[in-house]
């Protein structure tokens, strides 16, 4: 590899520059489906992070052993193994979360982020970098899904993590918790984040110009 990637940039890349939710727009099914309460969103994000870190770790270890032709089934088996571990652990230790996430726990297997990172990063980079990438991407995903669930829970219920935040007179908007609310809220968040990204890029260009002068 020509360009040496440092651990710091790989880690930050997942959270900011290539945030899975807001930049890559990957893994939308769980993002939209479980983001009705912050607790659920956070749980989903952390479960995904766990799978992402360990699947990246194992795939990076095996990257020179797995033949190219059967790499996709091989990746799937590795990912499915860790998803099963998460599924069983949640059932045993946090049954309430396991129940509210329901079908979306086994569906982490087909979350495109995990597969995309295995294919495009872990199968080409060293073990340490792959773990870092898994952690960064996982936390980026957790951040995205938690932000969306915070907005939805606040507007739809007036609470955050189950604690009343809005004043008594606030009339909860039920639609924020229904499926349409999920789509629209994510659309609005994307608009805001795109605008912020553009503003930051503009400022950077201005600064670079000033530095030149």
């Amino acid at each position, binding site marked *: 590899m020509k360009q040496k990637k440092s651990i710091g940039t790989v880690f930050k890349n997942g959270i900011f520059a290539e945030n899975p939710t807001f930049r890559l727009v*990957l893994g939308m099914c769980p993002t939209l*489906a479980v983001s009705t309460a912050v607790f659920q969103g956070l749980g989903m994000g952390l479960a995904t992070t766990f799978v992402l870190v360990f699947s990246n770790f194992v795939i990076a270890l095996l990257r020179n052993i797995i033949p190219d032709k059967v790499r996709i*089934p091989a990746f799937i088996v590795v990912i*499915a193994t860790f998803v099963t571990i998460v599924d069983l652990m949640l059932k045993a230790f946090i049954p309430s979360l396991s129940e509210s996430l329901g079908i979306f726990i*086994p*569906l982490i297997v087909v979350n495109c982020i995990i597969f995309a990172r295995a294919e495009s990063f872990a199968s080409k980079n060293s073990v340490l970098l792959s773990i870092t990438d898994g952690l960064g991407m996982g936390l980026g995903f957790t951040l995205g899904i938690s932000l969306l669930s915070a907005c939805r829970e606040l507007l739809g219920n007036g609470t955050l993590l189950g604690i009343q935040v809005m004043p008594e007179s606030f009339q909860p908007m039920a639609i924020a918790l229904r499926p*349409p609310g999920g789509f629209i809220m994510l*659309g609005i968040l994307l*608009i805001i984040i795109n605008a912020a990204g553009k503003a930051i890029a503009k400022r950077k260009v201005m600064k670079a110009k000033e530095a030149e002068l």
Partner: protein
Amino acid sequence: MTSLILIIISGVLVNNLVMSQFLGICPFLGISKKTETAFGMGMAVTFVMVLASVITYLIRAYLLLPFNLEYMQTIAFILVIAVLVQTVEIVLKKVSRSLYQALGVYLPLITTNCAVLGVAISNTTAVEGGYNLIQSAVNGLAGALGFTLALVAFAAIREKLAMNDLPKWMDGFPGALIAAGLMAVAFQGFAGLI
């Protein structure tokens, strides 16, 4: 018989995979720029989903349950679906050239379509002890038809949207998501049907 009709209505309209269960959002957002390709994708998903429902039912009933291997369900199902998609692709290539040309390009994408695995898993949890063979197949068919309906309708909306002068900040995903949200409002109207 009535239970089958209920499964169909519920799968296509009331519990539409995309609009109310959030399954298969990736192809829904990714392959919905043209109605033609959306329809091709829908048909490919229908084909695979019915087959997958039947085969995962058989695997569960005759392999996982007798040997107490239910905890292997996720791994078994996803492998079966991956193999199934590959097989369908190879068989179609040999048997029907025209069908392969119509559906072939979409087949590799279906392995990671969460709707297929989602339906296979929900077949086992929908009622106590899971659907039987016929109910599973019908549920797969209904889910896939609902997916196709949502995908084609959304593609038609996006084709119209592309002609319009959207503000720049709405271009791409944000606009598509908000349009999908408005469409989901319409699907909410079916909620009282059953």
